[in-house]
């Protein structure tokens, strides 16, 4: 168990292989990582938040953008990087409206992920 959640990077994706690979890559780069299989699983944990969030857009139940809208209306603010296979103008616009730090196409570049994580630790 991580004792200091404030210094962990959160990753939410419904695909277990994607989650596992993010954990591996970020841990090798020296980060603590918290992974969540769904937006709902993350919402159950908002009492102790990671310092920043890498978030998949296309998920069942609640999409990435829907989750962010929910967080914002609950007054929860943390830096977010949205990753999606299909960054349509609608998604990018909505992300900007919600004040999301960045939208990346899948597969995202290692540099973009690591500099995001480093910036918010």
């Amino acid at each position, binding site marked *: 168990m991580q004792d200091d959640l404030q210094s962990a990077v959160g990753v939410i994706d419904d695909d277990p292989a994607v989650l596992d690979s993010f954990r591996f890559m970020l841990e090798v780069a020296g980060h603590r990582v918290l992974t969540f299989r769904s937006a709902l699983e993350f919402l159950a944990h908002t009492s102790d938040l990671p310092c920043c969030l890498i978030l998949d857009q296309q998920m069942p139940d609640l999409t990435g953008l829907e989750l962010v809208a929910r967080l914002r209306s609950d007054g929860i603010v943390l830096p977010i990087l949205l990753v999606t296979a299909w960054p349509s103008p609608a998604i990018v616009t909505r992300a900007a*409206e919600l004040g999301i730090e960045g939208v990346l196409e899948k597969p*995202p570049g290692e540099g973009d992920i690591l500099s995001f994580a480093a910036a918010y630790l």
Partner: protein
Amino acid sequence: MSSEGTSTPPYVPPDHARFWLGTLTESADAGFVGADLRGIIITWNPGAERIFGYAPAEILGRPIGVLIPSDKQAEEAASLARIGAGETLRLETERLCKGGRRTPVSLTMAPVLNERGHAIGISVIARDMQRTFLINAENLRREAVLRSILDTVHEALIIIGDDGLIRSFSGTAERLFGYPSEEVIGHDVSVLVSEPHRERQVAYIARYLQTGERHIASIARVVAGQRKDGSTFPMELSVGEIALPGVRQFTVFIRDLSESQDRERRLAELRSELVHVSRLNDLGQMVSTLAHEVAQPLTSLANYLNGSRRLLTAGKAEAAEQALERAAEQASRATRIVQSLRDFVRRGETEKRSEDLRKTIEEASALAMLGIAHKLTLELRVSPDARQAVIDKVQIQQVLFNLIRNAAEAMTGDGMVSITVMRVGEMAEISVADTGPGLGEEVGARLFQPFVTSKPNGMGVGLSVCRTIVEAHGGQIWADPAPLQGALFKFTVPLPAGDSAKTD
């Protein structure tokens, strides 16, 4: 008012006022923030926490300046001076939330006075405008989109109430019917329908209005419309319902089928629809699903490889090995997706199944008869020993569509199209006969070659497409050289395997 002095307000014990105020403050959606004269925050309600993100413990005792973006400092100083002078201010501005995000807010700022009327601090009521902004922007956008759609579509749009009276009449409708909107709004929709058919056609709309049968709305209907000058034209209606609480209105989109250009466009659309309708939808959806499906393993693959490279650089080969194994798994996952795509496309190429011929023909002729102005009778006879054939239904419907269309186009007055299906050996033979003038000399032997046409607007591709499709089914298509009357086209398609043993 004279009665004002006589009514006494209900009595509230002075110490109870505190509880009322407390609950109001706690439950309000708006943020309530109090600061002393030095600008130090001393009250902070849950509303403020929702808007700005700070819990009370994080913000109480800190200067109010932490909420103010640097480019709003001057504005804030000016406001404070006015409040200091006893004024209450309302302003729309922006504030900083926890984490540095800016948010639009509407503020009411007032001086807090003690019992002697001296200012002891300021109170701020903050409302979050983020949602309001987004909703307003979204409404404006929708309106603009709707307006631009109505300007560009060729259909006229009429809105009618459930009493059949016209409520709205678009610009295109004005041009189409020749009525300015003020002359028809409030009148019964039947003024737009041609006299002799009025009863029947209005009955169609009425039935929709009464039963609200949704499926009728999705079927476009062709009826005769009547312009202000009395002239008539074929029009295609599609009716939709606007369901708002307490209001039942109907949108009627009207497409003018008389304009030759529009009619040609409609026919061209129908023709390509026949082939594409099913596949296009599949395709668009396929592409985005596929992008997502393939992006997943690629993301994992990239992550494993990038991490492994770091480990190898650090000399930790063993740890890298495991990750590389997982990377390889993800590569095969991507491969499997590409394989299943190939299978899908291959299947799409030959979509031949045993199909019901009567149903196939009925559907195609319904489409082919659309927008034909003169009266045509259609006759269909299917021999019981040739009910089914192994065909790509959409493609064979295209063949039927072209043949029926040609027959209809050849007959200028009333006429008849007879379609017969019978069994000839291992094949089903389908013939399409008409009562028109028959094939002209000039087309003769080159009938099935592309770009052979006798029509001013014809492309001459219809029959050549028919031949390509029929031959791809292993069948043949030809025109009977000496029919009793009109033109007679025949083509064959294979019967289901093993059907030859069956006799009826």
